[in-house]
């Protein structure tokens, strides 16, 4: 019975209690990416991207991430409307953008940004890893 309570507690912790600190960290990274890109600071913006996203951007643009990201049509930062954090992944919904982030040793990094919903299908994103 004690084991069941432990598993239930684990489930509840894993399921619901991704605390405010994680949400703040996630939304902070999402907003800083758009702010840096909007300010023309490509290096700062790229430092917030996941490695595969940097690689995909450089491959498609044929230029360094710091240069290429400024040519992407990322929206300006707006109010954060919703943050979802589940395990190693998170989604931040802003008034004008949706971003997907994953957990890395150095903190949350943006895997996809400039995303638009396509209903049941995966989001269509301006910037996307892999």
């Amino acid at each position, binding site marked *: 019975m004690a084991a069941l309570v432990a598993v239930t507690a684990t489930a509840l912790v894993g*399921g619901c209690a991704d605390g405010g600190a994680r949400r703040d960290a996630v939304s902070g990274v999402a907003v800083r990416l758009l702010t840096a890109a909007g300010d023309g600071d490509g290096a700062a913006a790229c430092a917030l991207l996941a490695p595969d996203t940097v690689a995909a951007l450089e491959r498609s643009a044929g230029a360094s991430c710091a240069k290429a990201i400024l040519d992407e049509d990322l929206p300006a930062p707006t109010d954060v409307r919703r943050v979802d954090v589940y395990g*190693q992944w998170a989604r931040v919904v802003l008034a004008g953008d949706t971003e997907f982030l994953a957990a890395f040793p150095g903190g949350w990094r943006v895997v996809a940004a400039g995303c638009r*919903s396509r209903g049941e299908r995966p989001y269509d994103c301006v910037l996307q890893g892999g």
Partner: protein
Amino acid sequence: MRRFVRENSLGLVFGVLFALALIGQAFAGHAAFNQQQVADGLPPISFGRYVTSSDFGVDVAENWQSEYLQFFLFIVLTVWLLQKGSPESKSLDEAGTESDKDQMVGVHAPDGAPAWARAAGWRRWLLSNSLGLVMGAIFLLSWLAQSVAGVSAYNERQLSQLQDPVSWPQYLTEPEFWNRTLQNWQSELLAVFSMAVLAIYLRQRGSPESKPVGAMHSSTGVEG
């Protein structure tokens, strides 16, 4: 000490086997999770983080709930349902909750019987149904844990595929939830069905789950 081990070997062996299997599942699940992380271009996570994750939680809970459902149904339904020739069934004339004399309660309680077997009212009722109630309660709790951990694990995968997460009520209508649930239920029900029917014709000498080797196939409610 040796006497204690011998007299409790059934519980001790299954307890140890359970712990070993759960530890093995944790290591295998951790390795599988990290394979997926690497495939997604993400860093591996620690063992500690994995065993407190919803991914591990749902994999454990979905099996637990079905096991306890199996035993709950088996315990409760065998009060009334019979299987001719099966040692898992009562004799064909004993269906039902039986008399107080047969169940040794009230004035029929022998010396050394649990105190609540002699008591009247809710206490006797609670003791009389405690096994089914506890098994049923653990089933419901495990199923709840499966759903709570399941929605979190499901949403983690949804986000990794750049798709929307769902709420807990939405998850309860998702094919994923019912696929996890029913694939476990069917295997448990098959096991009970097999045990009830195969034990009519097959024997395991010395096992209380079998009839005596020489018992007739038609003998019901006889354990060896």
